[in-house]
């Protein structure tokens, strides 16, 4: 019962994990508003290094981290829960067997 709800929550993230890929595809290049009068064309390779930084890896890493963190947390809680559950079951059966002499 408890492990199944952990699985359901895991499903939440698995579904979401596929979605950023979908969000990525219809992606036009952002068109910055042109300055008032462009008097020369500047190819992107001549911009300072910071402006050339591609945004996509940063975006994907950010979303990927969110999923990994949430998934990892669920796994951690699930693992601890099964461990405790096993101990509860063991203790309950010990008690049910009756007091030791």
């Amino acid at each position, binding site marked *: *019962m*408890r492990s199944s*709800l*952990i699985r*359901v*929550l895991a*499903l*939440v*993230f698995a*579904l*979401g994990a*596929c*979605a*950023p890929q*979908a*969000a*990525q595809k*219809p*992606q036009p290049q*952002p068109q*910055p*508003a042109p300055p008032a009068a462009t008097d020369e064309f500047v190819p992107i390779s001549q911009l300072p290094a*910071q402006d050339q*930084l591609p*945004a*996509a890896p*940063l*975006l994907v*890493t*950010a*979303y990927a*981290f*969110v999923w990994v*963190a*949430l998934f990892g*947390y*669920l796994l951690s*809680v699930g693992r*601890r*829960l099964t461990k*405790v*559950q096993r*101990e*509860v079951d063991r*203790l*309950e059966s*010990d*008690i049910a067997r009756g007091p030791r002499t």
Partner: protein
Amino acid sequence: MPKWFLPLAGVNAVMFAAAPFLIARADYESTMGLVQKIFYFHMPSASMFLLSAVVCGIASARFLFGGSPRQDRLAHSAAELAVLFGAITLVTGPLWARKAWGVWWAWDVRLTSSLMGWMVAWAYLLVRKYGGPGSDKLAAGLALFGMANVPFVYISVNYWRTIHPKTSVVPTLPADMGTALWFSFACFLLLFTLLLRVRVHLEEQRAKVDTLYLSLDE
């Protein structure tokens, strides 16, 4: 686990699957472009981080002054979630900042006080784990001070010269950005509730183990 848990978890799953489509449809921000879309998960995580700190603080106060073990379990769980959502915030933020500000990190008020609050959450967990007997009260005391930090984190950005966007950005979002943001916020809020419930359940089972051991000894 209560009856509402599984249905709501299902709803949350669907919402999280839908969120990226809303995010993709939102307009690009004019100066930051694509990387600004990190915002739609960064801001809700930060909100959940602060919410966890507040829940932890209130539960700690009720535990200190009322002695209820239920409040103690709630505080412990909330602190763990504060570490989780704080970590997400502190990773997604710098990834966005690298492109938007040109640096991974800046020591402005918002970032510094958030990092500090995150460390308080870690300290809470460390005290609970290694503090020995009485550590529940110690941690509760710490959590109260940590909660005092939360309003400061929120308003700091309005009163100091900082590089972090001010709180006026969110209420003035255009319609499609606003929709994407608040939908993601709802996803995270529901997730927070579900995770908190699961984590409290773990604490309840641990408490059950203790009482079972005690009754075994009798």
